[in-house]
């Protein structure tokens, strides 16, 4: 039983780590602001969630697992909100998607 739990948590942690790594590479390699944000969201969602589930399996039914659930809920609320705030403020300040990161000087945002 313990072996199965350890195995599943190993898979989850490794997959989560892979998602964080892919997200990190994406932030460096992607061409424009919005595509970089897209890569970053991978770290926030899949990466963090999988890693937290992996640690939860290691913690078992303890108070620590409950705290991890609280952290997970908090991340799921705040992560997308921060991404939304970032993207919408970029849009408001005039950075149009698909312009290779250049600020469109001529056409103001609607």
């Amino acid at each position, binding site marked *: 039983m313990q072996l199965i739990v350890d195995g599943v948590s190993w898979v989850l942690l490794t997959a989560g780590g892979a998602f964080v790594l892919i997200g990190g590479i994406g932030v460096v390699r992607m061409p424009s602001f919005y595509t970089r944000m897209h890569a970053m969201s991978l770290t926030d969602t899949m990466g963090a969630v999988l890693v937290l589930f992996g640690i939860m399996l290691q913690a078992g039914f303890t108070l620590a697992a409950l705290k991890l659930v609280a952290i997970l809920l*908090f991340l799921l*609320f705040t992560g997308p*909100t921060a991404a*939304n*705030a970032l993207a*919408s*403020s970029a*849009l408001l300040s005039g950075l149009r998607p698909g312009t290779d990161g250049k600020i469109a000087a001529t056409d103001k945002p609607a």
Partner: protein
Amino acid sequence: MIETLFSVFILTLLVVTAVAIVQTRSLFVAAMLAGIFSLMIATVFFLLDAADVALTEAAVGAGISTVLFLAALALTTDEERVKTQRRSLALVVVAAATAVLIYATFDKPEFGAADAPAQQHVASWYIAQTAADIQIPNIVTAVLGAYRAYDTLGEVMVVLTAAIGVAFVLSARRVQLPAEEEPKLDGTGLRHFLIPRVVGRLVIPFILVFGLYVQFHGEYGPGGAFQAGAIIAAAFILFALLEGEERAIAALPLRALLFMGAGGAVLFGATGVVGMVLGGNFLEYANFFADRATSHQIGILVIEAGVGLTVTGALLAIFHAFAARGRRE
């Protein structure tokens, strides 16, 4: 082993971040990097089992200071002015100081050595006495609140003085604006901010509860009034950012902030004077009640309340001073 590896990794990143902070010309980027630096050094503190310091660093360094940096940048510019003076003298001074510091590290005791002077001096006495005198598990709180309460009073005064200084420099008098000028965002802007506002309203009560937990649980777990004050102030700053400064001031007026800032320090000092009236030294709690341990616990609780009030009031007063200044121009 893995902990050492992780520490070395984080410390390397710290050096990289520090160099990047010096290198970058954009002050906005520098402020963000400073926040990242604080978060990483908080991790190092946590690895060293200094949970109290880690919590302070994360709350104050990564949280409040970043907000205050950004508030200051909003008043000035976010580009560093490039100086073209020769810097050879500065380089020599810095190189010499670095060499001296590195040389000094050779004399330092081994990491975690039991015969290090830091462990030989009063630390062992605190560890032995806390269980008998105060009967609380968190020795850090015992040292801050009871044995070294005089130092803590000094720290509270520093925080209060900083708030007064900022208030004087920025002259945080509230400027009356007509009601229709309040929303600065043009028409479509508010629509974009609906999601942060809704989630913010959802999160702020939890931040406040967590702040109170850190405040009153400091005797049993990591935490204490300085961290709690910063966390509670962060909740109010978040409210001010989302709902507008007017509503934040309406919820907690500037006058109340001043009373909190000064009142907390007065509460702290008055606790010390009560100790003198009851026949002890300044800030000696032993005579408050019949039971020695209870006296210490109540004394710590009261002065922690004072510290929390002062830190919250001072940080919010500083924030509002910046915000009011930005609105006037």
